[in-house]
């Protein structure tokens, strides 16, 4: 470890925030770019499964709430791309990497939204898992990322409450609505557990990321915390988590539960999720179809720049 690296690690250990103009190891920069970029992409791609129900939202109030939520997500994408840009990579570069399949987004968005309760389940479970991941990241070592997380977490908990509210209305509604709610839970439970990633035992990057305080908790810790939080909520809703093994373990002070099917996880990562082709295809199409708009705006700005100010 070089002198610089040692000093850098000491700052982190002290709890200092690293700022964009500070010296940092290449690996730190690269890891952060990958992590923040992937998070930004997830916000953008994450608009699509929810967008699938905006035109079919069952009441005007629900439609407005969902629109506001999706707008927030685009906003989160914006902060995060800005945070990544402080590390010397442009938003367009990141987007190109996404479109070329060289950067990922959260696999959860490769699952389809098939009934209205999925919108509730995404808020309750997916945003719930996201918050579980993100709350510790408010204390992450890189300043711009930590500050973006503060703002994002606040909005995400609001979204989670809204999602839970949808689930509650449905779980206490007509027989059809209860069936939708259970169906959504059945489909989103394991993919939500996968959001924390495979057990850290299998991950090579984790130790370094934790030392750098880019990652604060292990995947398994967070997953356990998520299950412990969610299981009683499901009970409260009168819904059944699709896991025969799920039960309270007094001894460990947490729930025992089944692992998700990690083969499925790796298949989805490889591109074989139910919606991978569609999600990425939709983003690429939006980008390509919008090229003339971006070019037009740029051309106009250039014209303005060379016109005399008096005009």
């Amino acid at each position, binding site marked *: 470890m070089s002198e610089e690296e040692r000093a850098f690690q000491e700052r982190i250990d002290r709890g200092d925030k690293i700022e964009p103009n500070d010296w940092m190891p290449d690996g730190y920069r690269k890891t952060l770019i990958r992590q923040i970029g992937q998070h930004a992409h997830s916000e953008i791609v994450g608009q699509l499964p929810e*967008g699938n129900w905006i035109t079919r939202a069952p009441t*005007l109030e629900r439609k407005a709430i969902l629109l506001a939520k999706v707008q927030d997500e685009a906003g989160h*994408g914006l902060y995060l791309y800005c945070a990544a840009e402080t590390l010397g990579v442009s938003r367009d570069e990141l987007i190109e990497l996404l479109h070329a399949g060289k950067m990922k987004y959260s696999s959860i968005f490769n699952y389809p939204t098939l009934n209205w309760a999925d919108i509730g389940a995404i808020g309750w479970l997916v945003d719930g898992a996201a918050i579980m991941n993100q709350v510790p990241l408010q204390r992450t070592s890189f300043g711009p990322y930590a500050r973006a997380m503060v703002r994002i977490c606040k909005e995400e908990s609001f979204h989670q409450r809204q999602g839970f509210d*949808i689930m509650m209305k449905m779980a206490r509604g007509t027989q059809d609505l209860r069936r939708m709610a259970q169906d959504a839970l059945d489909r989103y439970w394991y993919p939500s557990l996968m959001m924390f990633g495979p057990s850290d035992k299998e991950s090579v990057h984790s130790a370094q990321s934790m030392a750098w305080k880019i990652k604060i908790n292990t995947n398994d810790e967070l997953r356990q915390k998520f299950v412990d939080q969610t299981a009683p909520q499901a009970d409260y809703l009168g819904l059944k988590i699709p896991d025969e093994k799920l039960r309270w373990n007094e001894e460990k002070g947490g729930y025992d539960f089944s692992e998700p099917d990690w083969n499925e996880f790796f298949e989805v990562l490889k591109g074989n999720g139910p919606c991978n082709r569609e999600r990425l295809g939709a983003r690429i199409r939006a980008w390509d179809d919008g090229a003339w708009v971006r070019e037009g705006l740029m051309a106009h700005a250039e014209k303005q720049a060379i016109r005399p100010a008096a005009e």
Partner: protein
Amino acid sequence: MTEASDLIANDILFDWLLRRGDTALVLGHRVSEWCGHAPALEEDIALANVALDLIGQARLWLSYAGEVEGKGRGENELAFLRDAWDFRNLLLAEQPNGDFGQTLMRQFLIEAYDLPLLRALERSADERIAAIAAKAGKETAYHLDRSSDLVIRLGDGTSESHARMQSALDTLWPFSGEMFCGDGVDDAMSDAGLAPKPESLKPAWTETVEAVLAEATLTRPQSDFAHSGGLSGRHTEHLGHLLAQMQFLQRAYPGATW
């Protein structure tokens, strides 16, 4: 406190409120179809914001319409349980999104009309109308600023962006005249001091449109031919398809609480 119902027959006021509410609802629906598919992240945010404001306005107008009608229908019954022929929105609002230029031009042409309309409605003899208009007017002023600016920048951008904006204008122009076709409902509303005559809004609209088109280097179409029918329930074929999506859940699961 003045109430419209002292000044005008309920069925006329109901019809007029549906025109406002349905136009906002259908236009908001169209804009919301963009969600996640805009040319840039800033546009995704801006379009979601426009859609959100329009849905909000629709809720205010339709709730009021339901109260005026007095048959127990609220915003959701009116939005989700009427078929196309009972919708009273402008035909322009229901036109498909097309490319981003066509969506933008549609918003600009409607917003340039909505703003003077809402400003005038702030002086309505009915306080409820005036209050809704005051809120909606602030939002619309912001939207119009934005759409005007973008029309100018894309009209006077590349040759492709210019051509697309001109084509959008040519396609949508025949649907703009309907905004100024007053009928008996409008006359009655105007006589009661509740709303301006649509014709009276044309000068302000024309001024805005001509100024923006000039700066955008776009050519105003010659023909003043105007499609009409939306305000009396004769729509284009697009509305039925839009409603089939929008209303699915309420139709498929009647009586459910969401």
